[in-house]
């Protein structure tokens, strides 16, 4: 968890990726510097210069206006491909949670994580964690997308659940990327606009 998870590309010039460590990020292209200090987000247009208060909502809005995660994922020939290294785990079971003998609900148990790669293109997500833990699924066949502060989960066909804990990439970038790709895939297939990504992908009100 770090500021770069939120601010993965430059809100000023759009450069992608930002550099960062802990509660600070900086842009190698335009030189802006953003840090969290005493509960506030402070931006300097150049390192050591005057600091301005900025809101996280403004940072995210400007990143989206620059194209969010799509620009970096788009090649010169217009095709789209993006990948990241991750610790990949799969749900192996669900366990009941009881209190005083009464069932309250269920929680998922994830198997041991394995190093691997997740790659997306316009139509599919490809997961490769070696051996039988490899596969490729259409965005149209995904059941749900959800991000935690450090990982991303995808619900796959046949009641499978896969979780990615990224080695050196932002879960927010991936959440936004997956949502955009799924939305685009639904629109291309004429299935309407996606309005909800969890607990299942839903179109229209």
């Amino acid at each position, binding site marked *: 968890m770090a500021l770069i998870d939120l601010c993965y590309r430059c809100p000023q010039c759009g450069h992608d990726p930002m550099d960062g460590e802990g509660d600070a990020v900086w842009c190698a292209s335009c030189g802006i510097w953003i840090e969290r200090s005493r509960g506030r987000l402070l931006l300097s247009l150049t390192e050591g210069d005057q600091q301005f208060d900025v809101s996280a909502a403004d940072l995210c809005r400007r990143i989206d206006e620059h194209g969010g995660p799509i620009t970096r994922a788009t090649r010169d020939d217009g095709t789209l491909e993006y990948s990241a290294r991750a610790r990949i785990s799969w749900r192996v079971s669900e366990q009941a949670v009881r209190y005083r003998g009464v069932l309250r609900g269920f929680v998922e*148990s994830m198997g041991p994580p394995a190093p691997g790669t997740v790659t997306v293109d316009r139509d599919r997500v490809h997961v490769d964690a070696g051996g039988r833990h490899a596969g490729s699924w259409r965005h149209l066949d995904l059941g749900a997308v959800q991000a935690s502060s450090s990982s991303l989960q995808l619900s796959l066909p046949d009641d499978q659940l896969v979780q990615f804990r990224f080695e050196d990439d932002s879960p927010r970038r991936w959440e936004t990327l997956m949502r955009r790709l799924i939305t685009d895939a639904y629109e291309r297939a004429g299935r309407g606009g996606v309005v909800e990504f969890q607990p299942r992908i839903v179109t229209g009100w």
Partner: protein
Amino acid sequence: MVSGWYAFFRVALRWIGRVLTRCRVSGRSHIPREGPFILVANHESILDPLLIQTNCRRTVHFFAKSTQFGANAVFRWFLPRVAAIPARRYRVDPQSVRTALRALERGDGVGIYLEGERSWEGALRPFRRGSIRLILKAGVPVVPCHVSGTYDAWPRWTRSRWRSTVHVRYGEPLHFGVHETRGARESALEPAADRLRQALLALAGERPDRPWPTGA
């Protein structure tokens, strides 16, 4: 009904909340003294449940993502004792809804983060449709609760905390009535979501606009 563990943790965690934040609370009189109710809140920080539940006199069974229950043995022991309901986010979870409705039948409160997750950027996100359906099905009073300042204290993207001033505001209960059929719930979904959003935004008050710096 307040169980022993719940009462113990409410007192203990209220003190922890006071250490971690400078917490102000208003509108507690809007929480019904008896009978079932649903408490709906925005969600900006891991501190929110601690502050909302410990400042509410009634027992509130809050939905919590199922992943938290599996995080470690301590959480697995602790969360049911503070009346958390595990909700799976990767599939529709009818058991969590059954648990919530049972709590309401017993006359307790149920807590819902309408956005279904902590906001990355500290702004109100779209509401989860399943949560609105539950509100329309239950037909009990709905108390809006807005928490501000916890994003500054501890946003989801950092491990470091800052002791900010936090304001927990409980608002006047809203009444939506019972919508028994699926059709009735679907047609009432969007207006109910709008009404809940307006209630939370009214409690939040104006947030000052900050112009993006130009260096001029």
